[in-house]
């Protein structure tokens, strides 16, 4: 079930929220669990079955002796690895074999990847790691943990939540707060508009460009990449706003995933503002422990080298987390390299760059990174880079591409301004003014009219 479908917006969500607040706290929690399982099982019962199985593993692990429990918990990563990455490994070995190499060939599994598996695996893993580090108590029951793992506003594509935060909120929130409903409606409206009005419009225009990448000249290639730059942000942050909105309707504060990332003046700042819950997950559970461990082993020597290696490794894994293709690994390694360069440059104590220069350079670096991220193969990425550099000529004029007219150019121009404004939605509050209320209602209606054959959010594939 998609957030921006009529079924969800006009049926499922209102029904779940109304019944949720009509029930007393005990039954309310079971209602939430049942609703989440229906939501997640809408595409097929096998998905919730796998989720329940992995949650059971995680629950057992949290009750076992610490070290054994950690090993058991990490076996959820094995499940993720099989479902998501096994075929990549086989493909690689097949490629090596085809070029006269190793000669190891195994059959493909061709498993259908369950939506959200990367997200709930990492949620469960954070729970087990927090229990291991004694940062949170273990779940009182399997139902408690399954409620956390299956929480329908976040199960499809995050934002990642910590078990301790979720449980505390579920226990604390006992009565309906109109302020929460107001924020819920506001975030749902803005998220819906980000997805349906902006991201899907850009997608309609740039998807054909990405498909015919081999024929693009410099103008078409830059249009495709700049369009993707905005589309990805509005698609994913639109989804996250809706997740935050749905959470508010149930009295749960879902953490913010974006804080005006395109206003960043450095790549380090960008990663503090982009997909925040994923980057903090990797920071807390991989980068910091890894850096500390390496520093201990080196007895405090070569801290800059250790930081660079840790950044490269962490960001490459973030790339791989997105999917089983080398393009994501290249994208992640590129981000790690940029972060390492920036971290080292800061320690040289040079004069800080002017804000406009930092912002321009960061935007340019991020844009270049989207090429491998959005390409189906490294060859395709190389092809696009060549076109962007002008090695494939000017190509046809921009206005000859379907959908590129004054309206679309106005959209892109408007987005350049909007994404450079210094704040972002999760902390915004609606104005209690008549004009504002009517505009919000109008926006919701426009967005609902654009729901026809909903296209999935980009981050559902991860």
């Amino acid at each position: 079930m998609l957030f921006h479908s009529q079924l969800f917006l006009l049926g499922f969500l209102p029904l779940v929220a109304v019944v949720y607040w009509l029930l007393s706290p005990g039954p309310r929690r079971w209602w939430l669990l049942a609703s989440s399982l229906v939501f997640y099982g809408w595409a097929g019962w096998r998905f919730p079955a796998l989720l329940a199985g992995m949650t059971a593993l995680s629950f057992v692990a949290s009750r076992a002796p610490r070290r054994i429990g950690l090993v058991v918990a990490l076996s959820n990563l094995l499940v993720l690895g099989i479902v998501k990455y096994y075929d990549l490994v086989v493909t690689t070995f097949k490629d090596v074999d085809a070029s006269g190499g190793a000669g190891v060939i195994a059959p493909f599994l061709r498993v259908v990847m369950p939506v959200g598996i990367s997200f709930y695996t990492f949620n469960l893993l954070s729970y087990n790691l927090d229990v291991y580090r004694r940062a949170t108590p273990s779940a009182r029951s399997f139902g408690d943990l399954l409620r956390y793992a299956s929480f329908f506003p976040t199960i499809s594509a995050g934002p990642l939540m910590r078990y301790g935060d979720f449980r505390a909120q579920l226990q604390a929130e006992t009565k309906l707060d109109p302020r929460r409903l107001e924020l819920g409606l506001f975030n749902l409206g803005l998220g819906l508009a980000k997805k349906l009005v902006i991201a899907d419009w850009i997608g309609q225009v740039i998807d054909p460009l990405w498909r015919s990448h081999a024929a693009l000249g410099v103008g078409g290639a830059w249009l495709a990449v700049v369009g993707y730059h905005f589309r990805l942000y509005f698609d994913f942050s639109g989804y996250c706003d809706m997740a935050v909105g749905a959470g508010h309707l149930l009295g749960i504060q879902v953490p913010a995933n974006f804080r005006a990332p395109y206003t960043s003046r450095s790549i380090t700042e960008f990663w503090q503002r982009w997909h925040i819950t994923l980057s903090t997950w990797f920071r807390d559970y991989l980068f910091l422990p890894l850096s500390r461990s390496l520093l201990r082993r080196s007895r405090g020597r070569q801290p800059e080298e250790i930081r660079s290696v840790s950044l490269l490794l962490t960001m490459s894994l973030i790339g791989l987390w997105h999917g089983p293709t080398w393009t994501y690994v290249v994208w992640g390694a590129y981000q790690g390299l940029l972060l390492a360069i920036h971290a080292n440059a800061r320690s040289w104590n040079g004069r800080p760059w002017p804000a406009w220069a930092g912002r321009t350079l960061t935007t340019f670096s991020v844009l270049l990174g989207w090429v491998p991220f959005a390409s189906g193969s490294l060859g395709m990425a190389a092809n696009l880079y060549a076109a962007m550099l002008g090695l494939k000529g000017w190509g046809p004029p921009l206005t000859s591409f379907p959908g590129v007219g004054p309206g679309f150019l106005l959209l892109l121009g408007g987005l350049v301004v909007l994404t450079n404004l210094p704040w972002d939605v999760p902390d915004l509050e609606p104005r209690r003014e008549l004009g504002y209320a009517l505009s919000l209602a109008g926006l919701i209606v426009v967005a609902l009219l654009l729901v026809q054959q909903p296209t999935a959010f980009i981050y559902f594939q991860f």
Partner: protein
Amino acid sequence: MSRLGDVDISIRLLGLALFTFLFVRALLVSESQPVRSARWLLATVGLAALSLLGMVAGLNYALNPFGLYATRLFEPIVLHSRAEKMRLYRLAEPPPDIVVLGNSSGFTMPPAYITEMTRRTAFNASLHGGGPEDYLAFLNYMVSIGKVPKLLIVMLSVEQARPNLPTGFEPHDPLQPYLERSSRHLLAGARWLLTLDQTLASIRVLMAEARGRPAPHYRFDADGWGHFATAEAPPEQLVDTYLAKGWGPELFRFRALDSDQLAYFRRFLERARHLGVKVVVYVPPLHPRAVSLYDRETNLPALRTELLERLHAWQAEGLIAAAYDFSRVESFGGQAGEFHDLAHPTAEASRRMLDVMLRHLPPGL
């Protein structure tokens, strides 16, 4: 088309303007918020949104541009073919021996060419948005007027067997008495009350009433052969337009063929066998550029395999005389240039397919 596109862009720009206003206004924190409660905002937004949605739904229901509801204020603007094909078939004399069934991709199958090759009378009964349930209904119709052919050449594509296949294209569908429909269609009709497509169509109805109706997109000869109106753009550009609108990769991202549509098709085959009518089935081609995209990014290869396996199983059962896979243009010697757009082959391509299918006519014809 371009005027409608302008309306579409205008609505998106309106959405962008509203979004910008809400976003920027929320950024400009003033010290004095009006003394209103969260309940006030919720009630105002809810009431205004419900009123606007009610107005849109009411407009669409009253104008009924797709002929989905009971209202009859204006003539719907839809692509008619069922009533016309039924009328032409009733008039066809002598009764056709060979009938082509399909959706609009089959409009260009030329009956005269079939007659030239087989010395048998032929008719093209392809219907706009036609699918398995229409085939069964049209066969029932042919039986009801006593004009049952000897051979049916039937198209079956993956997109015709997809889940939630849109139906109900025709206002006051004249095939309705020969159809068996479920409550699913009522739900679909209600869902369409709040879509941009139907709202734009409602605006078109009003414009058509004020300025006169445009020429139809296609016309039919007496033998049912369809001719498309001259396109506003070159085919290659139309392929892009199709991919950007309803024929993007999303179309083929489902996992399995729809069991309801397959069941309809099987019932159609059983009915044909019961009547002693031979059936030849073909999987129609799509533009090669679209096929390579779908093969790369969608589940189409697996779905096509599933469809062909199903066809071969029915052939083994004796329900089908022959099955042909023309999903790739090379399979019948066609070319990329022989398409009107992404999904509609030209008459030349249709002749090539007929050359292959009619080379070996089923025995007993």
